[in-house]
């Protein structure tokens, strides 16, 4: 059975998702949710994943309060009550 979760988008990505701050996506892992997001919002292509298929280095992805890089990355599982948040990685010199 498909699980639908809330995905919160940062301002910089909303323009690629019809201006929405929060969208619904289906999937039981972060990777599956990203696939669904790209299906719904093709303009997000190149924003979520690096060329090698891993989570883009310019974003951070959270399952509730946890950075998924410290969980199972794209294989991190997601339940119906989870909220996925995407924020830009903020760095410089």
């Amino acid at each position, binding site marked *: 059975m498909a699980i639908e979760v809330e995905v919160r988008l940062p301002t910089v990505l909303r323009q690629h998702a019809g201006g929405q701050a929060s969208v619904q996506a289906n999937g039981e892992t972060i990777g599956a949710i990203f696939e669904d997001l790209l299906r719904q919002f093709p303009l997000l292509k190149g924003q979520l994943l690096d060329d090698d298929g891993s989570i883009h280095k310019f974003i951070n992805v959270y399952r509730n309060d946890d950075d998924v890089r410290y969980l199972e990355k794209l294989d991190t599982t997601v339940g119906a009550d989870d909220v996925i948040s995407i924020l830009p*990685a*903020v*760095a*410089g010199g």
Partner: protein
Amino acid sequence: MLRLTDATYIDMVAHALDDLPNEACGLVAALPGTDKIDRIYRCRNAADSSRLYEVEPLDHLKADRDAEGRGLEIVGVYHSHTHTDAYPSPTDVNQAPDPSWHYVLVSLKDPEPVVRSYRIVDGAITEEPVELERR
């Protein structure tokens, strides 16, 4: 234009001094649609460096949620330059995450701290005035 209250200005400069010898970094929040910074969020520098900064991702998440709970939104980032001018470095430009953001620099190069703010859009840097307000 970036409007700062004197309290947020002082807090930002104090954070830059507190985190020496490392660069300090944090996020700035405003009422949506305004350029008046209502609150700053000190964040940990995950790069732990005097030359680089990386806003600790969990601090960013907490700041984002807190801002939302107050009806604010994160509209920019500040960080310190410990030995160089208050001007975005090539690394700052390459990694600027959001063209709608304010990029605030606090330089500690000279005895008197210098605070400046910029817009960075498609790699082009434009300085914007910083206005201080008493409250």
